[in-house]
């Protein structure tokens, strides 16, 4: 029919049988295998898992941040039980000066910036931040 398209119907292009319509089931065909295989289990569970030991500096240092703090579970994926064990081992290693309690992290490009490390903060949204905030604090 030679009618003009109604305003509520968008031009469909080459799409067929309702895919992309609101409410239709979306399957990420193009995202590939990596999208589904991102989740990994706890690195200390399973048959070939390494044993957590305060003497194994190489292993433990993988679970420290650049500042020498113990990384949280949601980053490393360690299960709760092993995280407790891991924390104990790291604290023992620290006592024997095998691992640092704190260490200064100095990336090359940050040398000219302020000495206060810009961490533990949400990235500031510059556009939504009111401009006059600096003026108020002064």
């Amino acid at each position, binding site marked *: 029919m030679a009618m003009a398209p109604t305003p509520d119907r968008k031009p469909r292009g080459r799409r067929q049988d309702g895919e992309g319509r609101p409410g239709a089931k979306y399957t990420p065909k193009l995202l590939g295998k990596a999208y589904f295989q991102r989740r990994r289990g706890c690195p200390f569970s399973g048959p070939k898992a390494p044993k957590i*030991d*305060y*003497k*194994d*500096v*190489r*292993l433990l240092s993988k679970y420290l941040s650049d500042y020498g703090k113990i990384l949280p579970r949601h980053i490393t994926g360690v299960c709760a039980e092993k995280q407790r064990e891991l924390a104990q081992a790291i604290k*023992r290693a*620290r*006592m*024997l*000066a*095998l*691992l*640092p*309690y704190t*260490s200064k992290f100095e990336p090359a490009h940050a040398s000219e910036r302020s000495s206060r490390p810009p961490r533990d903060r949400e990235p500031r949204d510059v556009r939504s931040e009111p401009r006059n905030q600096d003026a108020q604090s002064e």
Partner: protein
Amino acid sequence: MAFYELTYIIRPDVPTTQVDAVANKVGDLVKKHKGKVAKAEQWGLRTLAYPIKKHRRGYYTMLGLSSTGAEAINDIEHQLKLSDDVIRFMTVKVDELGKEPSAMMKAKNRAAEGDGDNA
């Protein structure tokens, strides 16, 4: 029967014979309490992660002790505390003493092998 791992650090500015002297001293103490030194590892001179008593490096030794009671451990720790050469020590109760060398020794051997390949 209990197993313990005793690790201590000796200050780096004493003669290396002192490392063995302290180990012997601990061994005698363990014997006095009818215990046994089941395992002894010298990790050698290592750089400390942070300075201890103004020392930046130290000689590490790990001893695996067996069938020594809490009394023996108290005595050994007391003697280590009095010793001027020992700058840090730690005793950990473990379920068992592994037969094979610890991760530290493995890392050391790996480093040594790497050097051998390069040379």
